[in-house]
């Protein structure tokens, strides 16, 4: 009984020794060569393991190479220091030849750059396009309204004169006149085309509302604090001029204050005219409530809070909500200007 036990013990010790030998840390480091076509582990100048990527997956794998290198390291199974070397250029060409791999660097770079472009895109890109279209549409509506006013005014100036807003005008435009008028006699076809044009104008207005609602929806998801503090459209315009959420988040509030007034700013720098007080912020809803002389000060207050909102929105990815405090601050400060 005792003998057997001893024997067992010895056996156990032996296997332990073996394990220790295996686990011994190697002095020579393992070198992982990272290439656009796969990973290669070298130990003592010998290739010990390789993982070659398929051509159509190469760019994607290279893009997430850090992850794959970790995985690959665990598979090599040698206890040693690991070094990673990326190889490229003429060294890469030689290496590919040695490993017998056909590799098209240009095609790889195209696919890799595509992934980089994709990874750089985010929701704010859509907001920028939407608000730019919104702005352009707004201009188009105003221009078309002006033209149509003149056009229909040839026929019934007395009625056009009475309308003050675009909505009022759209109510009467294209209607047949009654009573005396100093207008020109229109034929049926002259009047008809005005009717068709005004219908187009109406549909442009309804499109503008749709886009506006859309911007509000997307903005309150991606930039909830900015949406409350700046307003959806004003916030979106700021993002657009800054060139993205990240850039806006990195801007000082003094820059945000005059975003949209670049022309006036450069005129100031070049010719020494007065510097602008506000740009896009002029269309902020609070601006209308403040006396003209105080608008510069309000722009300063708003931009200070908007810059905070933009940072919170960008870095918390729209998760943290702090707009209540910011609005309170704004209202408090308005009382003092």
């Amino acid at each position, binding site marked *: 009984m005792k003998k057997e036990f001893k024997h067992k013990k010895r056996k156990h010790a032996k296997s332990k020794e073996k394990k220790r030998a295996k686990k011994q840390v190697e002095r020579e480091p393992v070198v992982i060569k990272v290439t656009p076509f796969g990973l290669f582990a070298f130990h003592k100048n010998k290739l010990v393991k390789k993982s070659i990527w398929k051509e159509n997956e190469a760019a994607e794998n290279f893009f997430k190479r850090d992850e794959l290198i970790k995985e690959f390291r665990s598979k090599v199974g040698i206890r040693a220091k690991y070094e990673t070397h*990326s190889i*490229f*250029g*003429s060294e*890469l060409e030689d290496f590919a030849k040695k490993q017998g791999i056909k590799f098209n*660097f*240009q095609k790889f*770079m*195209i696919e890799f*750059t*595509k992934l*980089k*472009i994709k990874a*750089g*895109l985010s929701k704010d890109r859509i907001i920028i396009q939407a608000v730019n279209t919104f702005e352009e549409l707004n201009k188009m509506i105003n221009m078309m309204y002006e033209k149509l006013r003149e056009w229909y005014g040839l026929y019934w100036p007395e009625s056009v004169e009475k309308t003050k807003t675009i909505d009022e005008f759209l109510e009467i435009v294209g209607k047949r006149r009654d009573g005396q008028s100093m207008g020109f006699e229109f034929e049926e076809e002259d009047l008809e085309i005005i009717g068709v044009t005004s219908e187009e104008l109406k549909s442009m207005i309804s499109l503008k509302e749709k886009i506006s609602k859309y911007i509000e929806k997307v903005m309150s998801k991606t930039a909830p604090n900015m949406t409350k503090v700046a307003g959806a459209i004003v916030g979106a315009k700021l993002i657009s001029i800054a060139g993205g959420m990240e850039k806006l988040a990195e801007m000082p509030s003094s820059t945000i204050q005059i975003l949209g007034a670049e022309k006036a700013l*450069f005129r100031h*720098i*070049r010719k020494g005219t007065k510097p602008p007080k506000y740009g896009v912020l002029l269309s902020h809803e609070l601006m209308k409530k403040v006396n003209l002389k105080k608008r510069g000060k309000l722009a300063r207050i708003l931009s200070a809070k908007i810059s905070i909102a933009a940072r919170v929105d960008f870095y918390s990815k729209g998760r943290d909500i702090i707009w209540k405090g910011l609005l309170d601050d704004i209202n408090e400060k308005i009382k003092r200007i």
Partner: protein
Amino acid sequence: MKITKSKYEGIFLVENGKKKIATINLVPGYTPFSEQTVKQDGKEYRIWNPHRSKWAAAIMKNIKKFSLKKGDNVLYLGAASGQSASYISDIVGKEGKVFCIDIAPRVMRDLIFVAEKKENMVPILADATNPKEYEFIGKVDFIFQDVAMPNQVEILKRNAHFLKDGGQILLAVKSRSIDVTAKPSDIFAKVEHQLAKDFDIIDKKRLEPYEMDHIVFLLSKKVK
């Protein structure tokens, strides 16, 4: 129509009343920028518009002969949509390569479509102020730089180590991207002074009437 060789390799003079320059299309039939083409002797020439490309403008202004040739590897900083780079690609041909660096994803999107057709154009989305991002391209024979940044000279210095001995550089400088308030001639003099420390200035040409307030320098690295 008369097509003759110019003093620059791979660039041809097309005379049809007006003088124009052109390159031989590497991918016949493919004109991504709706550029004019001229066919003669089985070859398709792409007209290079000096109003759209600073290098074409510099050539029209008769800048000194530069060393760019077939088979060269070229580093192109600020390639944008690849319009000018596509002509460089024609010149270096299939044996050469044009590494097109730009930081803006939007223009790189357009460049990718061009590179998919022109197989010697390598798109690289990277920042030219940080050459480490594309160190892998190795040495090049020629550098084109057209970046609208205030620190253009500094960027060139950081990228100069890519250039082989004897290689040349074409550098386009837009005075307004350095300082909008100063006089262009003052800025160009300042830039020239900065360049003179590290580069030999072979030639320089203002680009009027093709581009306002622009200058192109032809440079080589100083031998130390």
